[in-house]
C-alpha cells in the first residue's frame, strides 16, 4: 500500500459503539468501524444498517450512545463543518422533480455554498461527467430511474466534497447502468477522496473498492482490503469434466476422496466441481484419464465477496452456537 499523505489520513471516518434503535428494531448495534480514505465499500444485505450508519455520520440521526469522528470532527456537535465536507447521494428518490437537472444541480451547489457564477458552469461540468446530455434542460419528472441516479450523483459531487457517501448508487439500474455508475465512482476516486459506497450487490463493490466493510444486523462482520478478504479463498480450483454420466460419477467420487469438495454442479453431460487443492494439478489430470472423462477445465476459482460474506456469516453463526469448526 502506498504511504498516505497527512491530508489524506485526515479524511478517515471512525465510529465506536454506535447504537441506533427505531422502536424495537436495533438498526446499529454497538457498531464499531474504522474507514480509511479511498473507496470503501459498505456491504450488507437489505436491513443490515448501511443507510442508518451513513445517516448517523451525517448527523441526521442521533445515536443512543457511542462516538463518531468524520475527518476529525464530531458530526453531532460540529454538524455544519462536517456536512460542508460531504457529498451525499441518498438511497431513495429525493430530487425536486419540477426542476430541470442544470437548475437543480446548480441550485444545490449554491445551497452547499458555491457562488452562482461558479455553480452554473460547474453543474454543466458534473452533468457532462455523469452522462446527462441535452436532457439536462428537461424537468426531472421525465427522467428514467438511471438518469435520476446520475443526477443524484451529480448533486453530490457538484461542490467537490472531500468525502462522498453514496448510498446504493446502483439502485434500480440495469446492468450497463450499474457498470457505468461504478466506473464513474472509480474516476472520482482518482482525485483523493474518501468515498463510502454502500451496496447489497457484491459485484458492484468488488470492482471499485480498496477496502470493504461487511455488516449485518447492525454489526460489523469483517473488514479489510479487497486483497486480504479475497485471499481467504486460496487453493480453490474449478474442475469441469465431460463424459458418460457413470464415468463422471465415479470421477467425482474419487475426486472427493483426494480433495475437499466445496460444491458440485451437474449440467447436461457436464459436471463442475469446486475443490480445494493447494498442490499441483497433475493428480487431477491423471484421475480424469483413469476414469475416462474429458477434462474441460481446471483453473483457480476466483473468490468473490459473496463467498467471503457467506463464509464469515457462517463462521459467526458457528461461533454464536459455541461449537464451530476451527477457523484457519
Amino acid at each position: 500500500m502506498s504511504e498516505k499523505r497527512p491530508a489524506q489520513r485526515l479524511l478517515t471516518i471512525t465510529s465506536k459503539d454506535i447504537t441506533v434503535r427505531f422502536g424495537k428494531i436495533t438498526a446499529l448495534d454497538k457498531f464499531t468501524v474504522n474507514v480509511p480514505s479511498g473507496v470503501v465499500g459498505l456491504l450488507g444485505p437489505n436491513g443490515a444498517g448501511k443507510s442508518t450508519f451513513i445517516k448517523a455520520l451525517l448527523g441526521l440521526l442521533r445515536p443512543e450512545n457511542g462516538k463518531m469522528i468524520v475527518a476529525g470532527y464530531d458530526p453531532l456537535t460540529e454538524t455544519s463543518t462536517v456536512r460542508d465536507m460531504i457529498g451525499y447521494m441518498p438511497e431513495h428518490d429525493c430530487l425536486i422533480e419540477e426542476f430541470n437537472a442544470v437548475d437543480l444541480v446548480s441550485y444545490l451547489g449554491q445551497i452547499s455554498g458555491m457562488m452562482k457564477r461558479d455553480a452554473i458552469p460547474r453543474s454543466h461540468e458534473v452533468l457532462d461527467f455523469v452522462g446527462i446530455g441535452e436532457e439536462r434542460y428537461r424537468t426531472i419528472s421525465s427522467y428514467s430511474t438511471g438518469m435520476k441516479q446520475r443526477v443524484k450523483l451529480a448533486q453530490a459531487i457538484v461542490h467537490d466534497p472531500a468525502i462522498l457517501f453514496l448510498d446504493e448508487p446502483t439502485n434500480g439500474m440495469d446492468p450497463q447502468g450499474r457498470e457505468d455508475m461504478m466506473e464513474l465512482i472509480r474516476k472520482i476516486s482518482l482525485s483523493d477522496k474518501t468515498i463510502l459506497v454502500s451496496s447489497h450487490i457484491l459485484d458492484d463493490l468488488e470492482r471499485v473498492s480498496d477496502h470493504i466493510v461487511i455488516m449485518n444486523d447492525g454489526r460489523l462482520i469483517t473488514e479489510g482490503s479487497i486483497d486480504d478478504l479475497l485471499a481467504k479463498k486460496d487453493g480453490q480450483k474449478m474442475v469441469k469434466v465431460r463424459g458418460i454420466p457413470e464415468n463422471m460419477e465415479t470421477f467425482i467420487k474419487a475426486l472427493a476422496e483426494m480433495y475437499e469438495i466445496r460444491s458440485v454442479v451437474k449440467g447436461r453431460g457436464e459436471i463442475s466441481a469446486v475443490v480445494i487443492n493447494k498442490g499441483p494439478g497433475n493428480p487431477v489430470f491423471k484421475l480424469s484419464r483413469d476414469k475416462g472423462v474429458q477434462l474441460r477445465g481446471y483453473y483457480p476459482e476466483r473468490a468473490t465477496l459473496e463467498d467471503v460474506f457467506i463464509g464469515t456469516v457462517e463462521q459467526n453463526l458457528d461461533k454464536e452456537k459455541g461449537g464451530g469448526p476451527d477457523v484457519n
Partner: protein
Amino acid sequence: MSIDPITYKPWSGERTNHLERVWVMSMAFFRQKLKSKWILLLLIIGLFLVNIISIFVYILPPHEVLDGEVMADQMGNGLLFIFIILLISMICSDTIAEDLRSNSFVLYFSRAMKTESYLAGKIGGAFLTLSVFSFFPPVVLAIAIMATQSSSSYGDSLVVLGQTVIAGLVITFFFIPAGLFISSMTKRKSYASVGTFMSFFILMIVGGIFSEFNPDWELMDPSLLFYYFLQAIFGLGLPNSVNVGLLTGIFLTVMFVPLILVYIRINQKAVGK
C-alpha cells in the same frame, strides 16, 4: 459524442457563508413562483383591481398630505385581503408539501442547512412573492401620494410612510406561517391550497356567528384582525368593544405558533428518515 472518457475534475473555490445560502433558497423560491402562470395571473389581476381605483381616488384629486386614514383604508380593503388569502393559498401550498412528497428535505438537511435556515429560506421566498402584491404597491402608492401633495410640510407624511412600511411588512408576513403549517401537514399541494383557503373562510364564519353572543369571538375572523391591526398602527384608535389584550394575543399566536409547529413537524419528518 467522443470516445474520449470524461474525467472527474476537482473544483476549488470559495464557499459562501450560511446566511447567503438562505437567500439563495428564497430567491430560487421566488423565481419558481413567478414561473407559475396561475400565481402570475392572480398577482396581475389583484394588482389591477386593488390599485387602479386608488390612483383616481387618492393620487389625482388634490390632497394636502399623506393621510394615515387613506392608507389604513387602502390596506384594510376587503379585496386586498381576499387576494392575500388566495395568494397565500397558492404560494405556500407546495412549499413544504412538495418537499415532503419528493423527500427532497434530505437534499437540504444533508447539507450544512439547519431547520431554522430552511424555514427562513421558505418564508423569505413566500414573503418576496407576496410582497409584489401587498408590500411594494402600498409603499409606492404612499410615495406617489406624498409626491403629489399640495402642502410643503412633509413631516406628518413621512410618519405615515413609515407606518405604511411597517404595516406592509406585517400584512405580508402575517399569514405565511399559517400557510406553511398547513402545507407541512400534507403531501398533496392541492389539499394544502384548498385547506389554507377554507381555514380562513371557516374562521371568518365562526367569528361572525359567535360574535353575536360575545364580541370577543369576532377576533376569530382573520379579516378583522387585519383591520384592527391597521387601525392601531396608523394611530386611528380601536372601537371600545375590542379587547386589546386578546387582540394582541391572537395576533401574535397567528403569526408565531404555526412557525413553532412547522419547525417541530420538519424536524420530525426530515431528521431521522
